[in-house]
């Protein structure tokens, strides 16, 4: 018995890793399978469709660049939602915090023209994070003080944020011209494309660096993921965040202020969403307008779910969603499958991850059957 007990940790560790990674992967595979059946039933060729989808998202450096471009804001909003979840908070309003981050960058990036790039970019990044945090602060205080549910309040603040932007781009911050948008950021406020950092010769020698529209924001996002991972694993801030997320009563008994932890968690979550808005403005659009985000804040919820709220898991999860959206066009063009089918697959992934119990149940049943055959 003692021997069998000693083998437990290794076995457990393996089990937990397999379970953590296994279910999301199984969900994605299952979603692709069901998606194929839907395509086939609608008269499309699923093999050709997924081949085209893959080609459009990973077929070459330009396509990979496009996938990274679309993954960048999703990594950050995914981190935002995941960090909140780890404190037991559902920040459904990442979209609004993202708008605030983008707005501050679009404004300051133009207003402070003239500062050197090395000063400007960090300044804008910090300003955007503060803006995102500020936008989460009121819901956070309401939650901590009077228990107002963050799902309602952060969502309401999303509307407020979006409409403030809508007003500003037709009003005070409107750039000259017909289009409701702000002035373009000067080069000194932009995040450059990755391929512009290398000389022609280098790009010829290393063609995989021709990443098209992918910009430095992806580096920012990956660094953010590493920082969040470090915070959760190696700091008292992260320890308290997780403790409160799991059991606020025991945390309180252990001398952790649940209210203060809640405020910090939502503000950090907001800061990460604000950062997403910043990289999107600085790296892609170079200005803000009404439709500058295609719901990154909301897709971030799906990314966090798929990543099981693990900050490093957020990266592959965001890349998956980025790839689905990057390859959709090619799929429509080459396999003649309507782009909307991608939305179905995304929905299936979310549904299956959310309904993880179902997948786990399937796995357990198979194990049970295998066992009963042995017995």
């Amino acid at each position: 018995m003692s021997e069998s007990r000693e083998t437990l940790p290794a076995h457990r560790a393996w089990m937990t890793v397999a379970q953590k990674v296994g279910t999301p992967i199984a969900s994605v595979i299952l979603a692709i399978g069901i998606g194929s059946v839907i395509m086939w039933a609608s008269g499309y060729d699923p093999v050709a469709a997924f081949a085209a989808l893959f080609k459009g998202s990973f077929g070459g450096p330009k396509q990979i660049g496009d996938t990274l471009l679309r993954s960048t804001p999703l990594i950050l909003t995914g981190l935002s939602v995941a960090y909140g979840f780890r404190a037991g908070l559902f920040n459904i309003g990442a979209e609004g915090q993202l708008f605030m981050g983008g707005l501050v960058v679009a404004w300051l990036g133009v207003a402070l023209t003239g500062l050197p790039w090395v000063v400007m970019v960090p300044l804008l990044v910090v300003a955007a994070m503060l803006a995102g945090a500020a936008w989460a602060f009121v819901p956070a205080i309401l939650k901590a003080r009077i228990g107002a549910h963050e799902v309602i309040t952060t969502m309401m603040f999303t509307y407020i944020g979006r409409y403030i932007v809508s007003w500003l781009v037709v009003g005070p911050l409107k750039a000259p011209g017909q289009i409701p948008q702000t002035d373009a950021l000067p080069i000194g406020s932009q995040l450059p494309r990755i391929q512009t950092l290398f000389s022609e010769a280098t790009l010829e020698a290393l063609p995989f660096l021709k990443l098209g529209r992918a910009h430095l924001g992806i580096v920012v996002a990956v660094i953010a993921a590493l920082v969040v991972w470090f915070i959760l694993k190696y700091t008292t801030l992260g320890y308290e965040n997780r403790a409160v997320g799991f059991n606020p009563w025991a945390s309180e008994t252990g001398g952790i202020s649940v209210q203060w932890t809640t405020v910090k968690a939502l503000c950090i979550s907001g800061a990460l969403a604000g950062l997403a808005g910043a990289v999107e403005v600085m790296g892609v659009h170079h200005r803000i307008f009404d439709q500058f985000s295609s719901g990154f804040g909301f897709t971030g919820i799906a990314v966090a779910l798929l990543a099981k709220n693990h900050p490093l898991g957020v990266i592959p999860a965001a890349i998956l969603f980025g790839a689905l959206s990057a390859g959709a066009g090619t799929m429509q063009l080459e396999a003649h499958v309507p782009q909307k089918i991608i939305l179905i697959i995304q929905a299936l992934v979310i549904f299956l991850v959310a309904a993880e119990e179902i997948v786990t149940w399937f796995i357990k049943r198979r194990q049970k059957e295998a066992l009963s055959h042995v017995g």
Partner: protein
Amino acid sequence: MPVLELREITKVFPGVVANDRVSLVLERGEIVALLGENGAGKSTLMNVVYGLLSSDGGQVLVDDKPVKIKSPRQAIDLGIGMVHQHFMLVEPLTVTENIVLGREPGRFGVIDFTTAHKKVQEIATRYGLKVDPDARIMDLSVGMQQRVEILKALYQGARVLILDEPTAVLTPQEAKELFSVVRSLVDEGLSVVFITHKLEEVMSVSDRIIVMRDGRVVGETKPSETDDVGLARMMVGRDVVLSVEKGPSECAAEVLEVTDLHVKDDRGLEAVRGVSFTVCGGEIVALAGVSGNGQSELIEAIVGLRRPVGGRLMLKGVDITHASARVSIEAGVSHIPEDRHRRGLVLEFDLAENLILGDHRMPPYATRGIMHPSAVTATAEKRIADYDIRTPSWHVLASNLSGGNQQKVVVAREIGRNPELLVAAQPTRGLDVGAIEFVHRQILKERESGKAVLLVSLELEEVLSLADRILVIYEGRIVREFTAGEADEETLGYFMTGGGGTKLEDEGRTEHAEMAEGDA
């Protein structure tokens, strides 16, 4: 002919053999107690019999015929009923509705409630299980709900009834009633298996006792052939000291000084009404009282979880009246909370993380907000060894430990912190004798090393054996104080239930007397 026989049942969980070739025979009309420590494999065995778990080997025989029980449904069809620790009743439905649920009399989907009523009444009268058939479950006491569970099993035609730790949730009075019900059931020819770790129950109700340890049957005996000490030895596998030995206490210095403390409860009513007492270093002071007389609020105020509305708390000369839980911990107050699942542990955290909760900001575990995993795990390993926490490693999640081991984790953390004052609330609730002995020894060790201990317990036996002084709390006031040896259970019980009301001194008396009159 035995009604139920188990032959060499084996059940393996990943890494642990929960049942190792367990054999057991149950005759018609007998009560068998399945005794063992938490985690000995009793519940696993019975869950196999009830079809909730599949065995990895062995045979189950009902009426001498081998059967394969794959689901509770099959178990019920074979006449086996089980009442779990956590009841499986539909709260908003009535007693009758719950009992007939799944086997409703009637036709075409229309339930024949007249017949249902009659049948339930019939069974209730036959076995002397008085219960209002029209009451809603949520309006019933825990004891009554358990009765409904038993009735349900009988309605389904159970001839063998399995009770999983039936008294864990009951008051002593309810437990007594349960035992008389169980008696009348076996008189009617049923057979009962009841799972427990409480020695006195085993001695008083069972016909036969089967003792399990580490997944094996280690002995079988009868109440007439053994005693508490013998059973405890069988169960734990070594001699257990059931009584506590300790020398007289000396008050080294006052550690905790509570002066005229007033604390409100969650509803805003004053739960603690002017309590004053001191706890010295090297002394165990016990707070005895019936649950709900202000103990919880008093403790929460002392450990910083609740702000007092009046009075003063001093710890070694430092005012901690308005200290937060964090300040209170840092000032040297440790707290073994009443409810370990809710307040004591983060069940989803591993043991290392749990073992430093509350100390997690301080060196060596963290400096300037950065944690040091090697220091955390070193402490975890030391505490796991020092406090005999049975676990393969600190990687294990707290939720995977047995109740006794979970409590050891809390005790290890709170005492391991080396506090000035240890506040222990119901530190042995739900634990088996081995673990109780362990926790008691740790508390006494604290006393011997000159620390102050405030013990709150509903178990008078525990209060009497551990405490140097006993404060009786009633309706938010200390109504009486005893020194060790001065009181017995009866005296304490008398004052705990308000018997000493007239002996109250000072201004509290008149108010108290008025209240008593008001109640009458």
